[in-house]
């Protein structure tokens, strides 16, 4: 008789999911799958809304990375207005994105994943969490909590609140950064850097020792990698993927790299995403399966996120982060193929963010009060692209002559890792489970399989909103579209 082993729910990730392992009649593992079990159908509700509202609405897609949606919506709005935003606004947005990447990575590493490494894969499941870490490793836990607080604090100072702000708008941002706030952030920066150094030192020591097998075998397979790069192939987190042709700096844009390091495509722009990305559906997950269109499905498997950004870039461009990137490449080669390397990549990116934050805060242009360009609607379709903590994020809107949304498409970072997450789960299951699989499997082994998903730090409430373009269906009969739409539907 065949058997199915279910891990339900997958814990210490964002969102709802289960894992199944299918065994044949002789108890050999034949398949392992990652099932995303939630779907909200979000895009439909954006239809009929003024495009200016999209930043506030779409940030509600996700409570971990609301800033990503805020910025992608604002960038798409910039292009609907056809404005070039003031330099200070561009820099303030970059500061916001760096703050968010650092806080999100801190959450992933310290709160969610490090209990596996620091307390042990087979430690007591009742204690294998951030509270267990606080008890067993208070210094490290406090450093992680304060590092996340540092990033969240910058977001609060810039945007007025930590979660779900509406500070970035089409044309720029709502307010500049005060000198007082700048100085406060600078004052806290050394402690944040010390926390990053502490985490790197601990993690690298583990990679030199007990975690060496994981680094070599945890979801280690060839795939493509996609991310933004800046001019000269520099590490990039926000700009260059959606600029108009003449504004796009040489070499910047989206780059796709093969497992052997060959650059398959570069200078790709968000506007053209349907030419290089496509999505498949499987009956057993609410999360669709994006793939690189030229290679087909599922051969067009690609990974996004921190590891992809480090694999596709030539260098980061700040000294400490480049030294840490060299350490990663020394361990894994020029293109790291192990999904476990995502954890180290996150720590490297925290360093890159902190160095980037420091450089921006010393830029005198940051205090320029001119932070918003104003214009009326000048285009009816636009794509905004940025790097969310978990990978490349696309917002695509069409609007009517009044600026009301008629179509929305969102391609979310986590979804693009779906094929890779499934393959990682299968690889780890093959690696850790005895063959044939016994009737009773130790909890620690199942936890290792779950940990394959944690490598990707998936954000599932985001990912299942990648529902695609949606023509308008609601009829709005008055200028106050929101109120009337609700009345009509009720």
């Amino acid at each position: 008789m065949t058997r199915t082993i279910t891990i339900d729910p997958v814990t210490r990730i964002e969102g709802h999911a289960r894992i199944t392992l299918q065994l044949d009649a002789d108890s050999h593992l034949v398949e392992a799958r990652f099932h995303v079990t939630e779907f909200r159908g979000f895009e439909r509700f954006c239809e009929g809304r003024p495009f200016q509202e999209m930043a506030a609405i779409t940030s509600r897609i996700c409570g971990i990375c609301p800033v990503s949606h805020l910025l992608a919506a604002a960038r798409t709005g910039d292009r609907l207005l056809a404005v070039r935003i003031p330099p200070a606004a561009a820099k303030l947005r970059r500061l916001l994105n760096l703050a968010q990447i650092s806080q999100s990575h801190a959450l992933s590493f310290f709160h969610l994943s490090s209990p596996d490494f620091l307390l042990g894969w087979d430690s007591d499941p009742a204690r294998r969490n951030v509270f267990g870490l606080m008890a067993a490793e208070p210094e490290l836990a406090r450093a992680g909590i304060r590092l996340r607080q540092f990033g969240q604090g910058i977001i609060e100072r810039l945007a007025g609140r930590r979660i779900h702000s509406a500070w970035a708008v089409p044309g720029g941002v709502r307010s500049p950064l005060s000198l007082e706030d700048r100085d406060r952030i600078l004052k806290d920066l050394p402690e944040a850097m010390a926390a990053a150094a502490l985490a790197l030192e601990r993690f690298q020591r583990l990679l030199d020792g007990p975690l060496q097998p994981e680094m070599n075998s945890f979801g280690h397979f060839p795939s493509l990698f996609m991310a933004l790069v800046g001019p000269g192939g520099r590490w990039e987190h926000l700009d260059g993927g959606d600029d108009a042709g003449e504004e796009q700096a040489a070499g910047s844009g989206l780059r796709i790299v093969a497992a052997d390091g060959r650059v398959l495509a570069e200078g790709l722009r968000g506007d053209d995403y349907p030419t290089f990305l496509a999505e498949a559906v499987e009956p057993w997950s609410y999360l669709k399966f994006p793939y690189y269109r030229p290679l087909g499905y599922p051969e067009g498997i690609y990974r996004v996120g921190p590891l992809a950004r480090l694999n596709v870039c030539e260098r980061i461009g700040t000294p400490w982060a480049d030294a840490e990137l060299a350490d990663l490449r020394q361990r894994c080669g020029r293109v790291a193929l192990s999904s476990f390397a995502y954890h180290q990549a996150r720590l490297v990116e925290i360093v890159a963010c902190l160095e980037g934050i420091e450089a921006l805060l010393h830029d005198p242009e940051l205090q320029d009060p001119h932070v918003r360009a104003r214009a009326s609607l000048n285009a009816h379709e636009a794509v905004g692209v940025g790097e969310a903590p978990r990978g490349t994020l696309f917002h695509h809107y069409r609007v009517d002559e009044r600026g009301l949304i008629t179509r929305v498409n969102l391609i979310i970072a986590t979804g693009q890792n779906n094929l890779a997450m499934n393959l990682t789960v299968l690889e780890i299951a093959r690696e850790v489970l005895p063959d044939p699989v016994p009737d009773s499997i130790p909890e620690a082994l199942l936890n290792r399989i779950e940990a394959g998903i944690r490598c990707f730090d998936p954000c599932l409430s985001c990912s299942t909103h990648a529902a695609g373009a949606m023509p308008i269906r609601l009829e709005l009969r008055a200028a106050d579209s929101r109120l009337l739409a609700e009345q009509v539907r009720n």
Partner: protein
Amino acid sequence: MSSATPKLRLATVWLAGCSGCHMSFLDLDEWLFDLAEVADIVYSPVASDAKTYPDNVDVCLVEGAVANADNLAMARTLRERTRVVVAFGDCAISAHVPGLRNRLAAEPGGGAAAVLERAYLELADRQPQIPSASGLLPVLLERVLPLHEVIAVELWLPGCPPPAARIRLVLEALLRGELPQLEGPEGLRFG
């Protein structure tokens, strides 16, 4: 609280939401160390590996609306095993953003069919189909419901998300064995 006092058994659950309320809970930052002195987190998607909702839970913070069969089953389970259920954030209180699809309920096939067909049939490049693997994926409810339409709720903690300070106010009162009094714009504001 003296060491003789038993620790509060605290759970957190997310249903159909964005996890923002849980992130705001983590925004309690170092106060989490104080909380750990007086409470045990016995179930939480972000802070526990427990796979089964335990018995005898004192307080559960429930984020999100009730949008599918899994959410519904979880809500009923936690109600049976929890003394104080807190509707944690605007989605749990009003269905809020996930509930926006209720406007489509009048469409042919209903609101759930409308969002599913658009996403998985019309917009797929390969293998268009509505994911429905039996026993693996929960069926969407026709209407997304606030928590109190499904189970009894003791306390409503508003905000999108509730700011960390408001969460702390509520937890501190519950730790004293009181039901917190949320008042004024600081305590009661939605959004």
